[in-house]
């Protein structure tokens, strides 16, 4: 909310500088987000009184104005029609600057010397009005430098009002808080509303309310004989500085009083109200209603409607109707000042998509006890600005609401805050914001809550007020008094730490992608319809189609991240991502699962003077997967891949204890192409939750053998029909003394030749040559017994 300090000054004496004021408000919970400094664009302009007006001897449309600046009497040539004797006007004296490099000089106009220039608002740069000379308010003394007056000078506070503080959506509401910080009391404007007309409102207008819960208070006032015109500068200035557009004197007054007091008002052309009556009704059926912006709005049952004798004339609290709005020819006006049910207004405003300044205030709840004062204030200003005669009295229906009371103890307060605030300080703080103590005992007190504080309903609300006024900075920092408990670290957390360490150690860059992707990714990856990954959770209101559903795979986004980097010149990448995927298991059943995703492309390094690097292949990725799963205390096997998006032949399913825990391999190049990638990507996606179930992080020491190992190397020809993993397993099974079986060479001529190193180890004795030799014979015997394996000589 924008608050001009010049306006605020009318309610409270601001005896601190603006920065200090801003800080006080911020520390009260009314954050000042910025201070707009309004400074004049002109210099050398003073207020002057016109003492004489004579026609210009040489020009019909010019006049010669004699003006008094308090110090001297000057003659100025003027072309505007709106000057009159005794009017106060801005005089740009000789040497004055009016912005844009324009300097006022002494110069002859049609043969008569002009000692300066009388200015319009536009010429002073304070508004766009150029219809005439800017007539200054009477109270400005001749000689006043206008650059230093509020006309051109102000500070506007931009205050972020918390959503629960509707009472601060007015200058007066802010003034109440300011007054409390400055140990003052905010003052309401003093005025006397006199009825100039003989007529009484009750003789000329009717009022009924159908449902007092929807509208517990409604006041109708009348004024006749007004003339619609532009509001004076001071009012337009304040409206503009608050971010509102001036329209005409009547509409401006309704907006002005709303900004001033927080009470939204509505003005009807009284002549256009059928049967001169207002009936506040709750819509019972659907209809449409044309609002003053010429849009037909749907009305739903429950909306509050303001009706005249023939039908709706306004949607209550939201917008008036075209059929009753104030026009340039309006002479008799009816003013509405009312309190509408906040929930009802919010529902209607939300449905219609209209968030007006009025609906905003009604939604948050206004001061029901201030409805009458605001109506009087508006009538007073309208009469001032538009003339006419105010009818005496008013139509009013008012379902009075007793202020709430709350009992609170001092130990409640200091116990929750951790403070030792004295009883006196507590009640003084509350009194400063109009929360008055009604009853007191030695433990606590009962206070009454004024009706404008819709946010205070229970003791914690009151404690909040006390803490705010006491000042958070005066509440100590303490250590909680609590039972010591070791913080828990779950298996998942510990495993995740292991995963991250592993990835760090193996050179992977961790990436993070959004949890959404597109069904197009599913199509590109050729995921069949009956696969669970096709059962995506859709988002009703996605930001874009690319992020239309929750992801069921992480690889598509990882590919995009790789493409992003490849397009920017990085060819060698190692990426790792941990994240969630989401499956629509049933109509109301959504499952979340954690995946680990790896991808690598290019080679370890582009070049080195020391070593030669070769391109990554299937086995680089497989080794990463094997190592990780082993590190998490599980064992995995690999079987030919079943995934439709992988290259058959160099891809595999990852199996742990017979359960499929993921896949590894290279993505088909036609799919890569769709992601604009032209180099091979090896990757793996692992289901973390399955690895967790199968894994074991318990570390158990095994004694280091005291006896030496023995090693034997073997070379076999192995047919392609025999998987090497099977051969290795068979050798291991031959004897518990075989502790390691490794492949140290493999080449292919007519047949695969595989060289195997077997390590023998006993925990009980030094193995003799004879013993090892007999095992060696056994290995050769068993291997060559298998079809497709023969010993290489």
């Amino acid at each position, binding site marked *: 909310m924008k608050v001009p300090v010049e306006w605020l000054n009318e309610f409270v004496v601001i005896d601190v500088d603006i920065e200090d004021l801003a800080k006080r408000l911020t520390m009260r919970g009314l954050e000042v987000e910025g201070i707009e400094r309004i400074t004049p664009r002109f210099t050398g302009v003073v207020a002057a009184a016109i003492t004489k007006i004579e026609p210009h001897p040489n020009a019909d449309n010019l006049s010669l104005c004699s003006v008094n600046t308090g110090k001297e009497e000057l003659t100025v040539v003027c072309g505007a029609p709106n000057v009159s004797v005794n009017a106060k006007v801005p005089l740009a004296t000789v040497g004055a600057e009016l912005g844009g490099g324009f300097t006022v000089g002494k110069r002859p106009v049609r043969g008569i010397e002009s000692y300066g220039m009388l200015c319009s608002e536009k010429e002073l740069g304070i508004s766009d009005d150029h219809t005439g000379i800017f007539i200054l308010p009477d109270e400005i003394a001749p000689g006043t430098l206008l650059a230093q007056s509020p006309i051109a000078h102000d500070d506007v506070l931009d205050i972020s009002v918390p959503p629960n503080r509707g009472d601060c959506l007015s200058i007066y509401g802010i003034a109440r808080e300011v007054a409390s910080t400055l140990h003052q009391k905010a003052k309401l404007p003093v005025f006397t509303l006199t009825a100039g007309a003989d007529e009484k409102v009750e003789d000329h207008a009717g009022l009924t309310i159908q449902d007092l819960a929807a509208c517990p208070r409604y006041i109708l006032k009348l004024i006749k004989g007004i003339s619609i015109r532009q509001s004076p500068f001071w009012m337009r200035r304040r409206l503009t500085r608050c971010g509102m557009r001036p329209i005409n004197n009547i509409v401006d007054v309704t907006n002005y009083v709303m900004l001033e007091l927080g009470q939204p008002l509505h003005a009807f052309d009284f002549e256009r109200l059928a049967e001169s009556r207002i009936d506040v009704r709750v819509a019972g059926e659907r209809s449409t209603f044309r609002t003053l912006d010429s849009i037909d709005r749907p009305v739903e049952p429950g909306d509050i409607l303001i009706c005249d004798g023939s039908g709706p004339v306004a949607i209550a609290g939201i917008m008036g109707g075209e059929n009753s709005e104030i026009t340039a020819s309006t002479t008799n006006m009816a003013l509405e000042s009312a309190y509408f049910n906040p929930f009802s207004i919010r529902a209607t405003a939300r449905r219609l998509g209209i968030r007006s300044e009025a609906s905003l205030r009604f939604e948050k709840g206004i001061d029901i006890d201030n409805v009458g004062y605001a109506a009087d204030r508006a009538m007073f200003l309208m009469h001032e600005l538009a003339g006419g005669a105010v009818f005496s009295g008013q139509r009013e229906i008012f379902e009075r609401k007793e202020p709430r009371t709350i009992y609170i103890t001092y130990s409640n307060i200091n116990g929750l805050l951790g403070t030792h605030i004295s009883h006196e300080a507590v009640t003084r703080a509350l009194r400063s914001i109009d929360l008055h103590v009604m009853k007191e005992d030695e433990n606590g007190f009962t206070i009454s809550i004024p009706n404008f504080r819709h946010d205070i309903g229970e003791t914690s609300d009151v404690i909040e007020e006390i803490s705010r006024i006491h000042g958070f900075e005066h509440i100590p920092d303490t250590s909680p008094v609590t039972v010591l408990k070791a913080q828990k670290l779950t298996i998942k957390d510990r495993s995740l730490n292991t995963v991250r360490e592993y990835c760090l150690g193996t050179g992977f860059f961790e990436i993070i992608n959004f949890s959404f992707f597109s069904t197009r990714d599913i199509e590109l990856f050729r995921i069949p319809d009956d696969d669970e990954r096709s059962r995506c959770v859709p988002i009703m209101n996605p930001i874009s189609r690319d992020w239309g559903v929750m992801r069921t795979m992480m690889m598509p986004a990882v590919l995009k991240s790789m493409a992003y980097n490849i397009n920017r010149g990085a060819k060698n990448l190692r990426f790792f991502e941990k994240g969630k995927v989401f499956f629509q298991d049933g109509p109301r059943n*959504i499952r979340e699962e954690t995946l680990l995703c790896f991808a690598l492309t290019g080679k370890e390094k582009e070049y080195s003077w020391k070593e030669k690097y070769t391109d990554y292949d299937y086995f680089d990725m497989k080794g990463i997967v094997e190592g990780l799963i082993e590190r998490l205390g599980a064992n995995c096997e690999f079987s030919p891949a079943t995934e439709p998006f992988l290259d058959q032949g160099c891809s595999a399913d990852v199996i742990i204890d017979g359960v499929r825990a993921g896949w590894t391999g290279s993505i088909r190049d036609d799919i890569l192409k769709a992601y604009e990638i032209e180099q091979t990507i090896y990757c793996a996606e692992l289901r973390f939750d399955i690895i967790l179930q199968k894994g074991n992080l318990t570390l158990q020491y095994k004694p280091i053998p005291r006896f030496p190992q023995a090693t034997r190397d073997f070379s076999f020809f192995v047919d392609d029909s025999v998987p090497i993993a099977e051969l290795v397993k068979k050798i291991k099974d031959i004897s518990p003394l075989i502790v390691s079986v490794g492949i140290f060479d493999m080449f292919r001529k007519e047949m695969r030749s595989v060289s195997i190193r077997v390590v023998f180890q006993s925990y009980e004795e030094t193995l003799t040559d004879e013993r090892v030799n007999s095992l060696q014979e056994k290995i050769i015997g068993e291997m060559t017994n298998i079809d497709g394996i023969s010993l290489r000589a």
Partner: protein
Amino acid sequence: MDISGLREKIESEISRIANADDVKQVKVSILGRKGIFAEYLDKLKTLDKDKRRDAGKAINDIKTWADQRVGELEKQFEEIERRKRQAASRIDITMPGAAPLFGRKHPITLTLEEIIRIFSSLGFSVAEGPDIETEHYNFEALNIPSDHPARDMQDTFYINPGIVLRTHTSPVQIRTMEAQLPPVKIIAPGSVYRCDNDISHTPMFHQVEGLMVDKNVRFSDLKGILTIFIHEMFGPGTPLRFRPSYFPFTEPSAEVDIGCVICGGSGCRVCKDTGWLEILGSGMVHPQVFRNVGYDQEEITGFAFGMGVERIAMIKFGIDDIRQFYYNDVRFLSQF
């Protein structure tokens, strides 16, 4: 027995030593099993007792001398050899080293780990919840009523009516309190979602929620704990302030600001000339939230806080565009 000439014989052997190999040969020829001394010592056995002693002593004296002499030469030539080897294997030590392969954690992970480390050290345990939440856990149980502006479709991703992508990690508060009795002392890190995408918003980001509930937990405790956190996270001298604010699920509510790390508090574009940066929201748990989970709000109190991980990372590392976290550009990632 004649031992005159032995010394000369030895001397002539030693004098032909010209390199390390010669040293080894001469060692054998003099001191070896079939060397000169061995020969003389054999002869000793033929002498009678008295003569044997005198001759033995004389031979030993010569042997001690020879040992020492050969030893010196051995060291001398070893040193020469070592220098030769070294000269042969000389390298340019200014050539680049072979950099090991080493991965990087994402800056969000680094920041999350740091936040978790600090609160873990203060006795908070990590709790988790689902990303796809019911409106009940995300809003109602947190005292955010159905007509609250936060529930507009503009802010919240809806899966279907009643199911949303969580807009904050606060639902974990509710889930935790429903599952256990006080005392509760948790932090809940995780991804959260809002319909926004610009230089300062991404549709997904990360938050850490904190909750402490027990008998006699005070607002001053909240101040104490968060002050420790900020001084650990941003350095012990970091200025901070607690400022009254509004959240539906806490009361009193406080926003915590730290002195702007860019300008040091004098005012700049980043802090919008205020000298302060908003870093987290906090407050005492609202009694309605306790009632919603069936806790006796007369008996217990608590505080809660929540912070945006990206925001903290941006301030800590000087990152000016939140979207950088999600491009996964290696030129960005390799800086952490």
